């Protein structure tokens, strides 16, 4: 892909325990592109994310990404499956954290933080502590925090897996709205065919043992995607296609 923002070439990752998490994985993501990584557990999708974020290094192969290019600035944001909020700080301070670590004072950051709180519907909870929030609210705070520093890359590792369906769909919609307003490359890891189909422009299907890319499916539905899309025949088709790709990936790994 020309001018790829993120590119992985023939990446191998073997952990110290001897487990081969990734074998010859290659992929590239364009700036502003929304890509899902879909696959069964153990296929290395979280590992791919950690490599892109610079939290881990490949055993072999080449990786290019903003996190690797620029050691000084934090251009990559990560949303974990657990909201990973600082329990001793309130919502405002949690969202302020990336800016704070970059040297921006509370006063200077206030307008940006407040804007994001407003976008994520958190304004009245600005001084609440994470312990007082529901799982869905905490995830909203995590997303607000991820977006506050205007990252080039947003990495999300099954962020909505622990939430109920309604909250999940609402957050899906909010995520897309935020992405449309301020385009950034998104790598979204999920094991839900439905979620991958609804959110992404492209779905990379991965198989397990060892982790490898099995298929890539492009979804050319334009944005914004409303809930009407979920009930359309096109969506059902895409989901069917993805499901069989997933099954094939899982069958391949059983071999």
């Amino acid at each position, binding site marked *: 892909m020309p001018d790829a923002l993120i590119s992985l070439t023939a990446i191998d990752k073997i952990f110290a325990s001897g487990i081969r998490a990734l074998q010859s994985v290659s992929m590239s993501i364009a700036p502003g592109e929304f890509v899902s990584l879909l696959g069964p557990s153990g296929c290395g999708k979280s590992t791919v994310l950690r490599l892109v*974020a*610079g*939290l881990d290094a490949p055993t072999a192969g080449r990786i290019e990404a903003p*996190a690797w290019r620029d*050691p*000084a*600035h*934090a251009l*990559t*944001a*990560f949303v*974990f499956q*657990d909201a*990973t909020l*600082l*329990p*001793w*700080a309130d919502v405002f301070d949690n969202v302020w*954290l*990336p800016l*704070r*670590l*970059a040297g921006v004072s509370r006063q200077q950051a206030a307008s940006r933080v407040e804007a994001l709180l407003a976008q994520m519907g958190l304004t009245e909870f600005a001084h609440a*502590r*994470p*312990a007082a929030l529901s799982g869905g609210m905490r995830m909203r705070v995590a997303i607000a925090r991820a977006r506050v*520093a205007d990252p080039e890359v947003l990495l999300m590792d099954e962020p909505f897996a622990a939430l109920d369906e309604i909250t999940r769909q609402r957050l899906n919609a909010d995520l897309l709205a935020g992405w449309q307003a301020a385009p950034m490359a998104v790598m979204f890891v999920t094991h839900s065919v439905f979620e991958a189909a609804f959110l992404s422009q492209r779905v990379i299907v991965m198989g397990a043992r060892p982790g490898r890319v099995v298929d890539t499916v492009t979804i050319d539905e334009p944005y914004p995607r409303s809930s009407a899309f979920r009930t359309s025949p096109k969506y059902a088709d895409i989901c069917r296609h993805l499901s069989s790709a997933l099954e094939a990936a899982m069958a391949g790994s059983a071999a």
Partner: protein
Amino acid sequence: MSCRAFDRMLPGAALIGFMIGWEVLVRLAQIPHYTLPAPSLIAQTLWTHAGSLAGSWWFTLKVTFSALILAMAGGVLLASVFALWRPLERAFFPLAVMLQVTPVVAVAPLILIYVDSTTVALLLCTWVAAFFPILSNTLIGLRATDAGHRDLFHLYRATPWQRLRLLLVPTALPYFVAGLKISGGLSLIGAVTAEMVAGAAGRETGLASRILEASFRTETPKMFAALALLAFTGVAIFWLFDRLSRALLHHWH
């Protein structure tokens, strides 16, 4: 009476009940004052000897809290050093454990050989008794950072100072406070034990000397009066640290 008000009254009510029971027992069984004095006699003795007991009480408090502050400083410092350099921890942690299990009564006479000032000797003995829980707990706390938080700070290129201030200290705080609560009581016990063994009557003396003196002079009510002050101090210290713990941590722990 509301549930909460009743709860708050329970300890006070239990204590009063205990005192009344004690008074009744002594009177009914006609237990002599030199074996077990009644609470009324102890209270009277406290009043009569308020002056000298207050002075001794103040001395014991000074030693207890000075040693506690030194234990906090020492414990936190050592924990930070150990957290930063594992080889140092492996080398010196066993020494710290050895210090903790050495009884003060054995160590005190040895310390006295090398240290001239009695007060310094007392502080040293008390420090030995009190520093380990703070060291141990703070070390655990410094290592207890959440992996996700560590990743977060790495992602955002936090400096070591930022890590310490914004991640390590808040994470370690509940553990440190737990250690502090334990050390508070140990400081008091350590101060009293050290003085019983290493203290010298006459000059600056604390409650331990008053207890010993009363014991040797067969002044049993006075001995109990000093013991009562000690018990009260122990409870007060515990209550103080409980409040402190709540103030520091209530909003999230």
